């Protein structure tokens, strides 16, 4: 199975036999790969019936739960890693959820589309309309993405919350790294990966 580029990157970050919780696990590709390749004890939360059905067909531990209702039902320190790919911008309370992720898990991995990418800036700044792209395909009136942010915004929040940024990967639309992106991530990265730890 070929994983989407972002999921392949996350797979590399996770240790064998780890206990993983995937928030907004979608069709369970990441968990299926982690179970097969790294023998993780993984669970995924999702609220979409179609996604859940696909997860069941893969034998993935999918649990029907809406992230906006909170994840208070999970115990402190219950997971090695809590993952959330491309869901941060769609949840009602991103800050609260990030705190919860680091309560439940020792570390977390968060990925999101960077709204500071030059294409977004160009569409809004030069052409005067809300950005629409491969990673943000919706229009302003039908988007589920209610909390878009830039890498700069995200890092400011991490700073305010004292979250430790253990690792950052900034990539282009093909999920590849490039020196130009590293040079000016908030302008050049279309996607960002952050591995966070608890306040030290």
């Amino acid at each position, binding site marked *: 199975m070929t994983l989407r580029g972002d999921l392949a990157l996350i797979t590399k970050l996770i240790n064998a036999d780890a206990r993983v919780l995937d928030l907004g696990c979608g069709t369970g590709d990441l968990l299926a790969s982690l179970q097969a390749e790294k023998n993780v004890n993984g669970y995924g939360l999702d609220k979409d019936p179609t996604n*859940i059905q696909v997860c*069941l*067909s893969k034998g*993935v531990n*999918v*649990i029907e739960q809406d992230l906006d209702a909170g994840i208070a*039902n*999970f115990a402190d320190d219950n997971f090695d890693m809590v993952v959330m790919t491309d869901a941060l911008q769609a949840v009602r309370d991103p800050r609260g959820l990030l705190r919860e992720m680091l309560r439940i898990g020792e570390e977390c991995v968060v990925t999101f589309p960077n709204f500071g990418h030059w294409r977004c800036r160009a569409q809004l700044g030069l052409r005067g309309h809300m950005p629409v792209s491969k990673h943000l395909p919706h229009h302003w009136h039908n988007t589920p993405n209610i909390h878009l942010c830039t890498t700069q915004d995200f890092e400011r929040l991490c700073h305010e919350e004292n979250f430790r940024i253990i690792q950052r990967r900034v990539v282009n639309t093909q999920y590849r790294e490039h020196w130009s992106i590293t040079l000016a991530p908030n302008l050049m990265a279309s996607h960002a990966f952050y591995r966070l730890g608890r306040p030290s």
Partner: protein
Amino acid sequence: MNSAAVSVGIVSPQRFHSVAPLTLQNGSVLETYELVYETYGTLNTDKSNALLICHALSGHHHAAGLHQEDDAKPGWWDACIGPNKAIDTNAFFVVSVNNLGGCHGSTGPRSINPNTGKTYGPDFPHVVVKDWVNTQAALADHLGIDVFAAVVGGSLGGMQALQWSIDYPDRLRACVAIASAAKLSAQNIAFNEIARQAISSDQDFNEGRYFEEEKNPDRGLGLARMIGHVTYLSADGMGTKFGREVKSGDFDAGDDVEFQVESYLNYQGRAFTQYFDANTYLLMTKALDHFDPARETKGDLVSAFQKATCKYLVLSFSTDWRFSAARSQEIVDALVRAKKNVASAVIESEHGHDSFLLPIERYTNALKTFLDQLLIMQKGESE
């Protein structure tokens, strides 16, 4: 595909007669007992495709197919059991048993007590979910089944499936608990107590010895069933099904009208007294109230699940308030903390607790996919 069109066909109940004495959880001993059961599908050569169905409060062994060609209704879970259905009898060998203490042929309050030569009636010992699981395991021995591919049940049946995973961790590969709970809420126990009071306050109840006078507490048992029925439906579901439709009488003529919902409930209550025993109803509701596997682990459900090795599927329904989705979530949360493999879904349905008996597409798809996946994985492991 029309689910009514495919069926396991004509089935015949079988009997398992146990001669090994059974010590129940309350210490009483049954020297012998009988269980009546049905099977659907074919046991494969390595006996790895057996699936046990555990029934709910008013259920029995006749879960699928017909006893006779002209039966008005098929078994109680025919919506889910049959060729290519959620519980696919082309793939699984399905065993469905009437629980000890039941009133459909297994040893119970209507049976003769060999020590006295008289009908047990109210003297039939108090049985609990663990006792049922033990007798189901004895039946599995009799059938030569070491390990069930899955143990599946709804409501009280789900409780048995959970208990199986705790008491016989090596004898099942999957546990499916549908519209169930790890223990009843106070509200749920309260409804059971009202039902029991309805039965025991019937003047024909005679402290459970109604059969000695050739009477039956029809009014009380019917009322108990009516109470149950209301709690198994949702407010919206009842609204859709009955609304304020009038069965008989005319408002304008100043009649005392009978609403459709009244007529329905009265019919259900009356019908129930024809095939269900009052003492069994008391026994089954007591077993429901009593169930709490965490009692053995100082109230800690996570510890109770610690020994389990199977994977779990926990399903609930959006409008079920008797066994709400929150109760299923408690099971899931404990299983996650116990590091067990578990999947869950909350199925949108307006049919309340009764949903688990109905062919709701998302529900049957989820169940089928989970069970089929078990066999695929099993095949993969053995190759």
